[in-house]
């Protein structure tokens, strides 16, 4: 046969199909309604999403309302001792025997006062050990007022599984970690990590849930049945 033709890679095949397809332009959605209208991208979408107040105090109030609507527990604590005190109440009510956690400024201080046996995830762990923990103690990246979500990442929450495997997830956060909306939360982690992004980043909004049976809400489908967020100054 004629000249040796290089075999196309799958990548080239797909990109070739796409480029061929895009030779014909598609009508622009912005102009469906009113021709000549400015592009909707000219305005930040935050303007259309549910509103968030300016002051930090109001944002914390909104976070609490949204988190509680999602069936999470929220509590503002004055110091580490108050956090530990509250956790002791939860521990005796829940009959905790063992907790999972990672090291960190807040988690270390709280765990010292709590004094329960623990599984540390920092340098790896046995899955069954972590699975048998009654609660998980983690930090977070941010608390999002607009949605009541906790943003965690692998480094801020002791890896991927800690915040989702034990049945009760306790999040420790500082007031300055409260952000108005998802967009600011994403911007913060982008600035913080630049190119060294963690392999996992998650917005947790309330305890795990399902509505798969008759669309009835059940908490604790596969992840935690309870989520507690404790805010420190």
């Amino acid at each position, binding site marked *: 046969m004629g000249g040796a033709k290089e075999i196309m890679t799958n990548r080239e095949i797909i990109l070739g199909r*796409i480029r061929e397809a895009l030779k014909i332009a598609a009508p622009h959605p912005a102009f469906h309604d009113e021709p000549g209208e400015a592009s909707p991208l000219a305005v930040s979408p935050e303007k259309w999403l549910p509103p968030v107040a300016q002051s930090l105090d109001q944002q914390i109030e909104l976070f609490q309302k949204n988190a509680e609507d999602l069936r999470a527990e929220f509590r503002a604590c004055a110091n580490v001792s108050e956090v530990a005190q509250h956790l002791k109440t939860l521990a005796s009510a829940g009959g905790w025997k063992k907790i999972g956690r990672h090291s960190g400024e807040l988690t270390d201080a709280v765990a010292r006062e709590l004094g329960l046996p623990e599984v540390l995830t920092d340098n790896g762990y046995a899955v069954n050990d972590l699975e048998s923990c009654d609660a998980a103690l983690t930090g977070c990246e941010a608390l999002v007022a607009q949605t009541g979500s906790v943003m965690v990442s692998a480094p801020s929450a002791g890896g991927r599984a800690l915040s989702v495997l034990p049945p009760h997830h306790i999040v420790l956060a500082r007031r300055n970690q409260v952000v108005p909306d998802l967009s600011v939360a994403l911007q913060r982690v982008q600035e913080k990590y630049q190119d060294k992004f963690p392999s996992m980043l998650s917005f947790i909004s309330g305890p795990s849930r399902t509505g798969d*049976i008759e669309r009835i809400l059940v908490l604790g489908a596969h992840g935690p049945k309870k989520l507690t967020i404790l805010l420190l100054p």
Partner: protein
Amino acid sequence: MSVQSKEFNESATRYTADLTHRGWIQKALAGYYVKRDEFRNRYQSWPEARKVAAEVKWEAVNHLDRYLEEFASKLEARGTKVFWAPSAKEAREYIVDVARQNKVRSIIKSKSMTAEEIHLNDALEEAGFEVVESDLGEYIVQLRQEPPYHLVFPAMHLTRKQISDLFHDKLGSEPTNNPEDLTMIARAVMRKKYCEADMGISGTNFAIAETGMISITENEGNARLTTSLPKIHVAIVGIEKILPKLSDLALFLPMLATAGAGQPITCYNTLYGGPRQPGEPDGPQEFHVVLLDNRRTELLADAEQRDALHCIRCGACLNVCPIFKNVGGHSYGTTYQGPIGSVITPHLRGLQEWKHLSSASSLCGACTEVCPVKINLHHHLLHNRRNAIHEHFSPFEKIFQQGMTFMMRHPGLYKFAAQMGRLAQPLQRLVSGTVLDPLRPWTKTRSFPSLAKKSFRQQWAERKKS
């Protein structure tokens, strides 16, 4: 008539007559409408938010080559293996290969419509691997060996009694009528599976080009566990899932939840940018991303309907569709049900075989009205009908239409035909709805209206005289 069309007609006829089923689906959706409206009203402007979402997806889909390359190279830079799959077959073979090479023993899977589309479970099971669906609804339909009923709520057609009986049969659990107990039965089964599984398979809701990440939206935490514990994670990504920027999620995550499930935000929205990175305590050693075309580029080539690739699979159009609510999700016989399924299936699986779905519509436009990314759904159903005729003109229909045109243009002939109709109608009445009736396709389920005793022209002439 295609086999698919025949099956659709049979199933739709059966489901439409099943009043229990219809009532059940109405009841299941009633709470959704209330919640959806409640959370939509919290937006400063839902219509403006839709416009932005449509614009962002337009930008992504109309520069798909550029964004896909950016997405893939960012992922690869951090140790992810990206496989480009032109068709379903290549995607299946690649994933089965990954399982074989790693001598995988058990596979856990979180919900993925794209995996349903390529029949991944069948391929893995044929190759000898056990695959367990971890999403509760998917697990239930997997145990029943049936496809998902709805692309977001796979088991919405089942009652707690049916699910309790199923668990009793398959898992030996005690019968219960409490949804919480049923959920806990599945939770206990699944916990063991997560700890044992050495491969996790997931779908993807959004693929972020800017940072090379996939985003998965879920309520149960099953996808989190599926992607945390096993040593291999394979994510299937339809090439249209692209969003240009990370910040686009600030809009799409809440909109997906509100439009699709009547929630302010879904419980877990998680981004994955690679396998376990240095210094991280857990996560998979290998992360594979399978980019799937499977004829999406054919839909892309149709500029008129290209916006159907904006779809974020929220399911909002199914939830409001009068056809879906009456014929039920299983009648479609497709991976994607409802209006969006009727629009895209002819592109993905053949127009002549699947054109009937575009006729199963009242063209009420409820789907277009609720679509968060403003896909022109009901117009695309019309486009499909037109294209089907262009591609495959029926000679009978052509002759019939030409005959009608000729008659309508000749008043004398029209008058004669109307007179004949008036004479013939009493005879038709005798056989109405039976096999002898020439109008049977219509009269089998409906009555045919009586022709007026006198035509308009006759009445006009008479009144003018008097």
